[in-house]
């Protein structure tokens, strides 16, 4: 028994030694955020301007909402490439429903319904059809975009109900409503992932699917739930996107949103293969991307080069996280 005690002791000292690296691995994204924030304020004084700060939040709110759902999907070990297309589809159909019914409520619910249904289909393909999530959602990405284009005849559709634009263009106290929705969704997903069994099961499933199944977890239902959740969040994002300009384009709206959302999740420290990652990490990942975009505009970096900088940051983030 003495032998065992010695081993335990060694393990203890080991953890104290590596506490510093643990701090870095747990909070690296927050540290990176602080560095970037300070650097930006020094580089350009206009960055700290209150309006600019609120503007950044407004700009990231749509991607932020989607990234929250993407975090959950990626924690479960999957990926969802269809978010941009589903956003366009949900937007187009909800505008049609809005115009036909004249009710804002119907428009909003239609968007949520279309989004969650598309997500449900993704979940069904992944869980029951045993199709790799990359493939299933790639199919959905092509399919949803095509239906949106067909319905809108390749163009844009505009809302004809006054008041619909109020959703995205009014503010409460100093915050724009989309920012508040983004914060609310973040809080919701946070509670879901850390305080309910759904979250616990998603982590378990992403870490070791077989062990999760043998622990009597309904793995299939969890997967369907995860994709339905991101679909619903995409529906929320679609409402904001549509309401902002009172119209949605079937061809360009939501394009490449999946890449930005995935980038935010990765920068936030979630592991590609699932099981490890944090909602708070994604929140800061989203903010980092927002600040980067903002700074590049403020410092007049050519828009053609902005993608290069973004790509570089993603790769650097992953390289740092690899060192565990």
């Amino acid at each position, binding site marked *: 028994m003495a032998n*065992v005690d010695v*081993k335990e002791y060694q393990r203890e000292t080991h953890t104290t030694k590596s506490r510093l690296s643990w701090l870095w691995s747990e909070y690296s994204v927050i540290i990176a955020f602080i560095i970037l924030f300070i650097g930006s304020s020094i580089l350009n004084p206009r960055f700290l301007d209150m309006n600019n700060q609120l503007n950044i939040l407004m700009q990231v709110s749509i991607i932020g909402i989607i990234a929250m759902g993407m975090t959950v999907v990626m924690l479960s070990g999957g990926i969802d490439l269809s978010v941009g297309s589903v956003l366009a589809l949900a937007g187009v159909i909800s505008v049609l429903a809005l115009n036909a019914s004249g009710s804002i409520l119907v428009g909003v619910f239609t968007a949520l319904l279309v989004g969650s249904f598309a997500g449900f289909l993704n979940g069904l393909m992944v869980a029951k059809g045993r199709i790799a999530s990359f493939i299933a959602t790639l199919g959905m990405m092509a399919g949803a975009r095509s239906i949106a284009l067909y319905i809108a005849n390749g163009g844009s559709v505009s809302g004809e109900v006054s008041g619909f634009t109020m959703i995205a263009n009014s503010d409460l106290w100093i915050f724009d409503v989309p920012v508040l929705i983004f914060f609310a969704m973040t809080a919701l997903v946070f509670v879901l992932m850390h*305080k*309910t069994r759904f979250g616990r099961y998603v982590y*378990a499933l992403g870490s*070791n699917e077989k*062990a999760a199944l*043998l*622990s009597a*977890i309904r793995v299939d239902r969890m997967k369907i739930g995860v994709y339905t959740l991101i679909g619903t969040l995409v529906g929320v994002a679609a409402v904001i996107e549509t309401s902002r300009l009172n119209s949605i384009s079937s061809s360009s709206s939501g394009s490449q949103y999946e890449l930005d959302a995935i980038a935010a999740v990765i920068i936030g420290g979630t592991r590609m293969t699932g099981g490890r990652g944090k909602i708070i990490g994604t929140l800061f990942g989203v903010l980092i991307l927002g600040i980067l975009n903002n700074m590049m505009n403020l410092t007049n970096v050519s828009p053609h080069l902005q993608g290069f900088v973004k790509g570089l940051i993603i790769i650097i983030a992953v390289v740092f996280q690899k060192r565990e």
Partner: protein
Amino acid sequence: MTSNPFITMQEIKKSFNGVPVLKGVTLQVEQGEIHALLGENGAGKSTLMNILGGVHQPDSGAIYINGEEVKMLNPRVSQEHGISFIHQELNMVSDLRVYENMFLGSELRNKFGFLKVEEMCRQTHEILSKLGVDIDPKEYVRNLATSYKQLIEISKALLHKSRLIIMDEPTTSLAEHEVNRLFGLMKNLKNSGVSIIYISHKLKEIKEVCDGYTVLRDGELVRTGSMEHEDIETITKTMVGKAISQERFLHEHPFGPVVLDVNGLTSNAFKDINFAVRKGEIVGFTGLAGDGRTELFESLFGYRKKYTGEVKINGQVVKIDHPRKALKAGMGLVPRDRKENAIIKDLSVLHNMSLSSMGNFEKGGFIQDKEERTKFQFYKEALNIKVHNPRIAIDKLSGGNQQKVIIAKWLEAETELLIFDNPTQGIDVGAKQEIYQQIVELAKLGKAVIILSSEAPEVMRICHNINVMFHGEITARFTADEANEEEIMNYATGSKREVAQIG
């Protein structure tokens, strides 16, 4: 033994994590000898062979080939010395062709760097026909029967001009006539001067082909000699050993009503399984690798769905096609291969413990951290789990403590029936004892317990009744008093089988 062996492993010692696995073992193999390496699971056979194959480095001791000392620094060095290791699980790329597998990593190329396909096919064909095997070298390996794959592995060893081939249980997946073909081949190899180290549990086979033998027990060499002068009985006795002071856990208490009743369960891994387990009873299932017991209980637990037959729990017929339903019906499973099947390494010790019974920790749909902690404190004391901070990831714990957490998980789920598959796999002796103690306690509390283990002594120590399985069938049944290890071995290897089934 003669004084001039081909290969000598001298006084090899090896420990893993402070646990000695080999305690000074010496092994000698002559040129052109088929040498049997015998011993129970965990006796140290595979560690010894992994040292010879360059996978592990010995703590002390030396290896000599033809009297010259060699260091097997890695598998490549070992291969260059003419040693080939044919593992139990075949190392073949099934999407490549036969000749591509044969030459994998040592392809023949012409001066432009292109592959010399025809030359490789010709050589493959030559070797295969020497073995009396007629396979098209361009056939895909996935289309071949397992026995042919085995033969291709051996051909590969020949291709590399091996002088010593290690075969780890090569006959487990072979049919009788294929075994005969393999033995013919081994004798041919022997005549051409190749030595073979043959690991197997099937003593009859060993008697048939082997010249010499070495028996290991608990990392020590217990007997070595020539096969001619020995009979199977004596060897079995040496393997098992008399003096092991592993007395049985005495536990006499009355059994309750039948909890689990299984009738005519059949699938592709097992056939016509009948048995019943009563409250308070510990039933053991043992057999060799590939006897179908794991598949049987994974089916009962709903992890595998394709089976026929009737399962009754507390007299009610149930159809279980998902582990969740098994849990609802009152069944818990502590699976084998903890790392792959049981622990969720990214979750904390605490969260692993509560995973199968989240309902116990919820209030209004939200998890109550405090209740989780209180409950864990209870199990920590009850099962003697050694962990300072239950919030650390479970894979930071030692194997024994991990297993205790998994057991706590299923205790918390409060099932009437608990199935333990290889519960002491990779666990040190002290923790083993504690786990046995726990299992016996559970039975005293009136739970029905099933233990699956490939180690006969383990089931003999704690079970009331023992079932022996061979090729997916229950071939014998013993009560704890009747059972002895040799008999169990006989049924597990298929050399004996009961004609009429009991009960």
